[in-house]
């Protein structure tokens, strides 16, 4: 990673630990019952709201998808991340992400992206910023 990318990622990092504190702009419960494209759009907005620097997240996401093309199915990622929360609480989502991250680090379910050692959940969220552009 060159210096520029490193700075980019530095800014990304500044928000990743605060995922659990970020306020979703749209509740996952509403997104779950709309048409597929609307659901994707809503989820994209929700994920985007988690990142203070969306460009940095997308840079990581693109690198992740380049190295792991099998992660390129947005529906599979959404299902795996349980982003469509039928019980409709942003708090639940935040807690879930936090717990997943903890569990992934504990169990070694980590992934290397651009030589950064990241929990799978963080990498997947970055991938979704690429796969589900907000303005799609």
């Amino acid at each position, binding site marked *: *990673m060159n210096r520029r990318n490193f700075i980019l990622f530095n800014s990304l990092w500044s928000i990743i630990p605060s995922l659990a504190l970020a306020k979703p702009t749209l509740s996952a419960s509403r997104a779950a019952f709309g048409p597929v494209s609307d659901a994707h759009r809503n989820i994209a907005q929700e994920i985007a709201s988690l990142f203070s620097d969306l460009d940095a997240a997308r840079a990581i996401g693109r690198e992740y998808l380049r190295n792991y093309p099998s992660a390129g199915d947005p529906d599979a990622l959404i299902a795996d991340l349980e982003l469509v929360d039928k019980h409709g609480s942003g708090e639940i989502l935040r807690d879930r992400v936090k717990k997943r991250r903890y569990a992934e680090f504990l169990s070694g379910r*980590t992934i290397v992206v651009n*030589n*950064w050692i990241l929990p799978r959940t963080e990498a997947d969220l970055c991938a979704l910023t690429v796969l589900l552009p907000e303005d799609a």
Partner: protein
Amino acid sequence: MYIDYRDDSAPAHIECDLCIIGAGAAGITMARALTDSGMHVCVLESGGFEQEEATQNLYAGETLGLTNADPLACRLRTFGGTTMHWGGWCAPLSEHDFQVRSWVPNSGWAIQYSDLVPYYQQAQRICEIGPFKYGANAFLQDVRTFPPFHPDKIDVGFFQYSPPTRFGTAYKDELGRARNVDVILHANVTRIRTDKSASRITQLQIQTLEGRTGSVKAKIFVLACGGMENARLLLLTNDIQKNGLGNGSGLVGKYFLQHVEIGAVARILSKEPKVLFDAFRKYTLPEATVAAEMRTSVKAQEKNKYLNCAFTLLETEWWDGAWDKTGYDSLREAWRQVKNGHLQDDFTKKLWSVVTDLDSAVEGTYKQIRDLPYNGELKELVLWARSEQSPNINSRIDLGSDVDHFGLRKIRVNWQLTEFDKRSVRSGLRTLAEELGRLNLGRMQVADWLMADDTSWAEPVWGGCHHMGTTRMSNDPKNGVVDRNCRMHSVQNLYIAGSSVFPTTGYVPPTLTIVSLALRLVEHLKQQLPTS
């Protein structure tokens, strides 16, 4: 008593009970431990009290394989040996380091940790460090809280800092006063003579650079010339055994090990880098100067099948080269000498370094007084990795074709690392990264070259000038060169002291273990050689 062998009044032929070849950490420790033993001990030293270019050049040789293993740069051929430029980091090997590990071929010592503990305790004093404690709660519990790492993954351990003890100055007067110890300076061993079966040494041929020659006869001989020269002298003794003295196993010079040290192996981004840095930085406490480190736990090593490694934090600015603290280091050393009431030969040089680097001296002193890290602005952290090297028969030293001043073949060093060594550092970093992430302390990015799953090694890798393994210890003569008492398997009156007997190395610098093994060897020799 000191005898300069260049002096014609010095006896050409010497007889003693015990002859120690080499006056470094091991040789000086043994000689000190034998004062008033009743044995007549002579210590042969190639150099004098000061470094001399012509003598130092006897270390010149070829370097193959990886760089950073050049004996000319790493070793010192003078009274005090390589301790005269030693960094002073001290820690014992762990219990685990002595054991056979199924995933580390050729691991396992012929002795156990418990065999060395009493000597480690004595070695602490010799190396001028604090009490013998190194575990997670050894120090700083009232000052810092360490991250609650999962014990199956990462441990916290400590290094202690020796001043560092320059054995050649710290113990010079004491050995000079010893009635039963003769230190023969400028006496180079140019030939080892044995009986016809090469099972006993009969005498040594010694020579000065100026050409004065003579001999030394003793009941017992100890090779204490360091991890390279020990093997070279054995390999040079090939008039009866063509592969070298005591080399029936063919392992003299093989399994040449160093530590795998990588200065900028990864960086950590953290919301609060100072909190993490402060936990693991150097502290000067009343009882010792210490620094904590993050080390891979035994369970993590077993589970992931990697080598023993540990990590220290550095400030980014340090790694970027901004931290030139020559003046500050010189000031500390000069102050130590004043405090001890014994000004050493380099005292004036130290003062001059302070004068020519006053900025560093002033800033360092200010930080020390305020108990601050050297650089106040901390943005990110860099990791320094230290790992053991896996025993590797292809990593070796042997004899080159060029000859030295005495017509003896020069050393040829071929330091080789393997994919296993690389994977171990990489996997150890991953274990640490996962723990830092789990505790929400930061994210780690590993150096690009290290992530490549191959055998390439980048320039920052070096061996710490810790030369080990070339006369490895074993119970079975087929698997090593010396036995559990450091006696050569096939030479009855020749022992080896120093890190060349280490079959595996842990990740800690070797000096404390060298001194401990030397003390243990003295105890053994006292039983073997009743006082005369």
